[in-house]
């Protein structure tokens, strides 16, 4: 079995993967507090990497018609409409003759669409109540059912509103389960510490899809292979910036040496806290977390799960030694049972 630290805990992954004199680990810091939801990242990525379209369906998920990261969308901009306070801003609809909010109800409807993304498994339908809670927050008490929206004449009116946008991407985990379970070596760790699918190797076994704790990677229909963000391996190898980060108009997506990005992110969080945005928090920045820290980490303004991120992911291979041990016991038991069955007994 490999060194335990090779499976879990803080690690510089490139040297661990056999790269001698590896360059600094490169990554993304995506600051959602300045994201304007323009989707330039989605398009720039597709243009550079020749990623096919992911379907022409209206999803009803605010302005998100992509739905999720898939083999056909390596960047995905999430949109969340919430009748909740937005940092230090004046309530958007203060003083307007509003009724109760519709965001939870509309989000619940949006949970039900099932587009064909051209990938497998793509974007299965979701659970309406979890969608509603995404919009309403943890205090969600269920949606009014008897009345159509807006009919309530009660004192409850919506005044606060915020529209969260966030460009999601492969996390390029320090401990990447997709990579470790890949039986062909198609998924590999580059000298930059990123995780890349080699399209000439992948045979579409699908193991990486089940292994990813973030639901990032899936399989392209017709093609059969798994695809995901390469952090523009070809570009960064040539000293260029990945296509999405280069396009991003507001520097919401920042690319650079991970150490530097973490430094920058800490400064940014502190600045936001000072400016009265206490909900700003980092996600995936911590090398002591369940995946050893992400190569692509985020500044979020809500709980991770609202953005479709797992709140506390742990790389499955952390437990792999224990699993092999269990399998060994079971195998021994099996052998012993066989021996006993033939050796013992009377007939």
């Amino acid at each position, binding site marked *: 079995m490999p060194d335990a630290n090779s499976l879990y805990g803080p690690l510089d992954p490139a040297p661990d993967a056999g790269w001698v004199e590896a360059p600094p680990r490169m990554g993304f810091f995506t600051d959602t507090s300045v994201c304007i939801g323009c989707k330039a990242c989605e398009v720039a990525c597709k243009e550079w990497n020749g990623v096919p379209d992911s379907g022409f369906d209206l999803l009803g998920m605010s302005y998100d018609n992509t739905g999720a990261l898939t083999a056909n969308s390596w960047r995905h901009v999430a949109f969340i409409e919430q009748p909740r306070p937005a940092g230090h801003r004046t309530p958007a609809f203060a003083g307007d003759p509003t009724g109760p909010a519709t965001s939870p109800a509309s989000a619940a409807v949006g949970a039900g669409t099932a587009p064909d993304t051209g990938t497998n498994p793509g974007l299965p339908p979701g659970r309406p109540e979890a969608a509603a809670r995404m919009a309403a927050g943890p205090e969600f008490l269920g949606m009014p059912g008897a009345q159509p929206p807006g009919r309530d004449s009660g004192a409850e009116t919506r005044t606060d509103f915020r529209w969260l946008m966030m460009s999601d991407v492969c996390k390029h985990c320090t401990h990447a389960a997709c990579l470790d379970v890949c039986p062909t070596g198609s998924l590999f760790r580059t000298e930059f510490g990123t995780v890349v699918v080699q399209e*000439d190797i992948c045979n579409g076994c699908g193991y990486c899809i089940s292994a990813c704790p973030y639901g990032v990677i899936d399989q392209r229909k017709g093609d059969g292979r798994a695809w995901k963000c390469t952090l523009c391996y070809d570009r960064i190898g040539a000293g260029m910036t990945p296509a999405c980060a280069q396009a991003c108009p507001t520097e919401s997506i920042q690319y650079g040496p991970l150490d530097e990005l973490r430094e920058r992110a800490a400064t940014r969080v502190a600045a936001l806290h000072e400016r009265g945005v206490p909900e700003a928090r980092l996600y995936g920045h911590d090398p002591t977390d369940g995946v050893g820290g992400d190569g692509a980490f985020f500044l979020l303004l809500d709980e991770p799960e609202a953005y479709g991120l797992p709140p506390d992911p742990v790389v499955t291979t952390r437990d792999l030694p224990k699993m092999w041990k269990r399998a060994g016991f079971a195998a021994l038991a099996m052998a012993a049972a066989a021996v006993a069955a033939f050796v013992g007994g009377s007939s």
Partner: protein
Amino acid sequence: MGLKTFIQGWPVYRQLTGTDPLGRGAAAQSARSAALTARTETADGMARSVCPYCAVGCGQRVFHSDGKVTQIEGDPDSPISRGRLCPKGSASKSLVTSPLRQTKVRYRRPYATEWEDLDLDVALDMIADRILAARAETWEDVDDEGRPLNRTLGISSLGGATLDNEENYLIKKLFTAMGALQIENQARI
């Protein structure tokens, strides 16, 4: 020799003999991946251009190989855009290389229900004839009081605002000389 190369190229061999026993990185890299480079690096040339969508005027670098556009991305030198592009600007390569682009002249005969093909030179000639006919038919030399009008109101034009200044200049110059006054542009809209 062949076998030896084959064996040495086998990742399992590299796992066993190299720095990557787990087969995660260096050993698993394919020859293709090792040789990978950005296609902008190997392009035949790069034209410095400007985004054709809105009026911000973001700088674009247009990379091309074998007479085909292979990549369009932001120009980091531009003081306007600093290398960034919006989704539309980022989609410029798809715009100009789109299979939906029309590349042949299409002609719809009066009362026809379908398009037909037409030679470009013939089309140009036919259009010129129609201009001259419309002009002849609708020419106004002078007004009621004998003041010059020098014009036709039988020809109209509406231009988009993605035309170059040089093009607009020739359009206005030619139409003005032919007396076509009703020349308009998106700028009115």
